[in-house]
């Protein structure tokens, strides 16, 4: 039994649990299964041998590796499993079979994809993440969520199709589908897979599926969605495109532009979606640098980010669950009725802002140092700008407008116990991995799990230089906030829709399609009419010339044509006879 468990991808167990969960109406039984499955998965992962093919299969002459654990995917898989466990606890207050099951299947698909050892297995679970996660948006039950889920599904499936097309090119070129890093983007297969990853990682201009769908998902759905898809893309990017310089610039731009959108966005869950974009930018930038220190930074950041982003989405989910809104202009003063949620949100805010003693600090320091060490001055300055931006939208805006600021007068119950428990556990992780190393805990525990633990353990995040510079950055930024608020220069929170790149397809593209449809609706019948008219006239002309009643049939002699034909034939015969003679 143990030998079997050691060779079984934990993701398969989660997918199976999810599918079975959809069919179990008994709430407590189903929820017990949802909580137990990730714990079993973590146990299975702890038993797996690293850097060897643990489960293989053959399909259509292709060698597939269904389960392979190595130093890169271990930390991602572990983070996914912990997130699945926390999500299951967070969902205990609700009784939704489909949501419970699909959330677990989605987590399982992400885990299975993380531990996939070849491109084709990756593709299968890549698509499964899309198909299973769409239910988390659909279950919101609104018209807006329905449209958003259809856009989400179309874009996610497009990513899968691009991945599959890329795989066929790779197979044609190499004769195998192994998960080996590409050396350049010149190969069409590499380029197609790059775009597939780019969609899932929400590269600039490919990012709007995220801000469109996550804020429209259910209370639990947004928490679940925040953990898996983008980080699976980060892992795939680290696997296939490490050290690609273009990623440094894509990542740096990704960290910057969401900052400006988050400032003016009123929906706090959408602010978190922009913040997610910004955080993934740090990871993508680190992958672009590609050195062991940078890849450690990307992996550490992904782990820490999954925890604190889930925590922030959980706190906003609790606010949404109790008050019915996450619009900043309708909230404020909730610390009076939801104090524990406030504390957990503040821990998440401190973690994402990278305050020393919180998880973001020990993770982001690796990336910042790696970028500086390789001499990318402009990219480093962009990341530093974005660090202050993170503090603005996730560190201050989220807790300030929801829990403090202007008192909205809303007096609600504190979040349900299961939500508080999940937030408490996530907070504990955020703090425990952010502390200096002690007794196997602290940041040392995280650094031991990184792809290059030797390099990581030589890195000291808690130096006087690091702490001083980080505190300078954060405290002066906080001072800027206090001054801007004091002098009335902070833009007020206003309801509205903020236009982003999705305007191109939701308005411009949709409008063009509508216009084209209208034009075709009118031009089609007109063209049919003209074609009918021309054909009718042509037929009339031909009929007038060649029919038995036509012009050519008329003449002095009946059957004149036959006589002419006979005469011409006779002349031709005579001529040929004379020529032969």
């Amino acid at each position, binding site marked *: 039994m143990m030998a079997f468990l050691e060779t079984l991808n934990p993701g398969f167990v989660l997918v199976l649990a999810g599918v079975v969960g959809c069919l179990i109406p008994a709430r407590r039984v189903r929820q017990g299964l949802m909580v137990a499955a990730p714990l079993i998965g973590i146990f299975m992962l702890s038993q797996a041998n690293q850097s060897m093919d643990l489960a293989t299969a053959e399909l259509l002459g292709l060698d597939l590796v269904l389960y392979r654990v190595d130093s890169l995917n271990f930390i991602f898989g572990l983070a996914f499993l912990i997130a699945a466990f926390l999500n299951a606890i967070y969902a205990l*207050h*609700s009784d939704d079979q489909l949501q419970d099951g699909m959330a677990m299947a989605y987590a399982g698909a992400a885990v299975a994809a993380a531990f996939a050892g070849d491109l084709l297995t990756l593709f299968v679970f890549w698509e499964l993440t899309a198909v299973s996660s769409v239910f988390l948006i659909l279950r*919101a*039950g*609104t*018209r*807006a969520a329905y*449209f958003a889920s259809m856009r989400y599904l179309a874009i996610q499936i497009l990513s899968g199709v691009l991945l599959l097309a890329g795989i066929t090119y790779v197979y044609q070129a190499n004769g195998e589908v192994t998960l080996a890093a590409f050396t350049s983007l010149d190969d069409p297969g590499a380029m197609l897979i790059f775009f597939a990853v780019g969609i899932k990682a929400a590269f600039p201009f490919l990012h709007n599926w995220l801000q469109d769908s996550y804020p*429209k998902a*259910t*209370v639990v*759905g947004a928490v679940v969605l925040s953990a898996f898809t983008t980080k699976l893309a980060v892992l795939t990017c680290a696997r296939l495109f490490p050290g690609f310089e273009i990623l440094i610039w894509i990542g740096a731009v990704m960290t910057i532009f969401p*900052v*400006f959108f988050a*400032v003016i966005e009123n929906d706090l869950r959408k602010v978190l979606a922009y913040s997610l974009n910004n955080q993934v930018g740090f990871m993508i930038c680190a992958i672009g640098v590609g050195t062991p220190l940078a890849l450690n930074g990307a992996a550490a950041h992904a782990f820490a980010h999954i925890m604190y982003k889930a925590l922030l989405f959980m706190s906003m989910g609790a606010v*949404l*669950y*109790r008050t*019915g809104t996450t619009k900043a202009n309708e909230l404020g*003063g909730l*610390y*009076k*009725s*939801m*104090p*524990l949620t*406030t*504390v957990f949100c503040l821990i998440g805010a401190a973690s994402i802002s990278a305050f020393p003693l919180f998880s973001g600090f020990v993770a982001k320091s690796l990336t910042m140092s790696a970028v*500086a*060490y390789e*001499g990318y*001055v402009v990219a*480093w300055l962009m990341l530093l700008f974005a*660090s*202050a*931006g993170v503090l*603005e939208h996730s560190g201050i805006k989220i807790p300030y407008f929801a829990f403090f600021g202007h008192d909205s*007068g809303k*007096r*609600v119950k504190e979040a349900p116990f299961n939500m508080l428990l999940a937030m408490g556990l996530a907070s504990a992780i955020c703090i425990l991995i952010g502390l200096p190393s002690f007794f196997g805990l602290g940041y040392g525990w995280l650094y031991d799990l990184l792809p290059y633990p030797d390099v990581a353990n030589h890195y000291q995040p808690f130096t006087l*230089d690091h702490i*001083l*510079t980080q505190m*300078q950055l*954060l*405290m*002066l930024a906080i*001072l*800027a*906030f*206090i001054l*801007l608020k004091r002098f009335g*220069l902070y*833009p007020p929170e206003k309801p*509205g*829709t*903020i*236009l982003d790149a999705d305007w191109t397809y*939701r*308005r411009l593209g949709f409008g063009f399609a509508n216009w084209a449809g209208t034009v075709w609706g009118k031009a089609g019948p007109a063209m049919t009419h003209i074609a009918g008219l021309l054909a009718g006239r042509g037929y009339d002309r031909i009929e007038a010339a060649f029919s038995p009643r036509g012009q050519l049939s008329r003449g002095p002699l009946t059957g004149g044509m036959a006589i002419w034909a006979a005469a011409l034939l006779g002349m031709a015969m005579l001529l040929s006879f004379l020529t032969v003679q």
Partner: protein
Amino acid sequence: MSDTSPPGRDSSGRFVKTETPTQAPVGDDQMHPIAKLLFGWVSAKSTPGLFFWGAIIICAGLMLADLAIHRHEYLHFAEFNGFYGIWGFGAFALAVLSGWPLGRLLRRDEDFYGEGDATPQDAGVEDEA
């Protein structure tokens, strides 16, 4: 007989100072007991002032500490005293102040795309399920 006098006047037509109805402030009596314990200080009148001066003192301390500590940076220009503080302050201020023009440029009606309210159906539950 109903009072037909215009608003702000009594039945004799004289101006009177009417008491304008004010919205009763939501009292702190409904505060969660843990909130009183953890965040009782938030609503104190002196809190904003304390935050303001506290932040100034901490920031001044951090900038002064930079003078005393010689930092080693991979990028040498970052060794300039107070570089991180100035960059953080400037970045934050730029990001926030850009919200004014960007809001005017990009903000549209809430139902701009005509898809209706996006609040999920499981939101706004007061009692535990």
